[in-house]
C-alpha cells in the first residue's frame, strides 16, 4: 500500500490532483479527500471524503488519524430548529451498496490540535479506520477556505 501511495503521489504531483485519486480497500472505495486552509494552527482543520461500499456487508468509519493533528475526531453538523451544533460522531455508517460523503454541512473530520497551519496547496495523509475493512490511508489536498470541494472530472456532486 505504501508503494502504491508513493507512486500515486509522484504521478499526481500537480496541486489539486491528489483529492481526485482513488484508494480502495476490500469493497470500499475512498476518494475526493480534501481539507480547507486554516488561519494559523490554533483553529481546527476539517476533513472531507467520499466512501463507496460496493460490497454486500455494512461497514462503518470508526476513526481517523493523521500526523497533521493531535486530536482528529469525527463530527456531524446537525441543524435542528435552525440551531447548528456539531456533536462527536462515534462512527459514520457505510451501508452495503451505498455511498457516504463527509461533506460541508454534514459528517466531517475535525482536526484539532493541528501541528501546523494548513495552507492551500499543501497535502497531508489521513488514515481511515473501518470497523470491518481495516485501515486505509489517503492523501488529503488542502483547498482554499472558500472551496466547496475538489475539482475532479468525476466528482460526484
Amino acid at each position, binding site marked *: 500500500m505504501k508503494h502504491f501511495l508513493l507512486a500515486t503521489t509522484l504521478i499526481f504531483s500537480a496541486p489539486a490532483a491528489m483529492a481526485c485519486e482513488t484508494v480502495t480497500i476490500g469493497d470500499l472505495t475512498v476518494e475526493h479527500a480534501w481539507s*480547507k*486552509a486554516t*488561519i494559523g494552527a*490554533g*483553529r*481546527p*482543520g*476539517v476533513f472531507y471524503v467520499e466512501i463507496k461500499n460496493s460490497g454486500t456487508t455494512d461497514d462503518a468509519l470508526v476513526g481517523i488519524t493523521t500526523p497533521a493533528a493531535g*486530536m482528529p475526531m469525527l*463530527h456531524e*453538523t446537525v*441543524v435542528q*430548529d*435552525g*440551531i*447548528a*451544533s*456539531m456533536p462527536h460522531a462515534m462512527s459514520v455508517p457505510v451501508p452495503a451498496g451505498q455511498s457516504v460523503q463527509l461533506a*460541508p*454541512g454534514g459528517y*466531517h473530520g*475535525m*482536526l*484539532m490540535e493541528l501541528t501546523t497551519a494548513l495552507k492551500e496547496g499543501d497535502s497531508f495523509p489521513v488514515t481511515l479506520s473501518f470497523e470491518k475493512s481495516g485501515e486505509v490511508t489517503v492523501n488529503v489536498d488542502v483547498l*482554499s*477556505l*472558500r*472551496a*466547496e470541494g475538489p475539482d475532479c472530472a468525476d466528482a460526484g456532486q
Partner: protein
Amino acid sequence: MLGVGAYRTRNRPARSEVLPVPIGQMTWTLTDHQGRLVRPSDWAGRPVMVFFGFTWCPDVCPTTLSDISLWLEELGADADRLIVALISVDPERDTPDVLAGYVSNFDPRIIGLTGPADEVAQAAADFRATYRRVDKEGGDYTMDHTAGVFLFHPDGRFASIIDFHEDRRFAVPKIRRTLS
C-alpha cells in the same frame, strides 16, 4: 416519546412568532473587523444580510461564508448597497483582528462584527438568534448557534431567513427581493 414531542410543541413558540425585530428597533453596539463601532442606525436605508458564527467553527461557518460569497458574486454590483455581516458568537476569541484575518478570505463586502459579551447577547436577542458554549475535553470549547442567514428590507423590516439546508438556488432570488 410522544409525550416529549407534545411538551416541546406546547412550550416552544413556532418560529413565525419569534421574528427578528426591525433593524431600527435593535439596540446593540458592536465593533467591526476594522475596529469601528457599528450601531443598527448605521444601517438605516440599506438592505441587510446577517448571520451568526465564529471563526473557530470548521464546517458551518466557512461553508456559509463561501455560499454568501458566491451569491454576492452572482448579484454583482446590485449587492453593493447590501450590508453583509457575520456576528461572532465567540467574542472571547474573535477580536476585530481575528475577524479581519478571517473575512479577508471571502467576498470583500462581508464585514465581521464582535464586541463585549453583553452586546453580542443583545444582538442575538434582537435577531431572535441563539447560541450556546459547549465545553470539550482539554479546556477547548465550541459554540452551537443559529445557522440561518437573516435578510432585512432597506426600511429595516425583517424579510426572510435562508436556512442552512435550504436549496441554495432560492437564496439569490430571496436576496434580490430585499435590494429594491
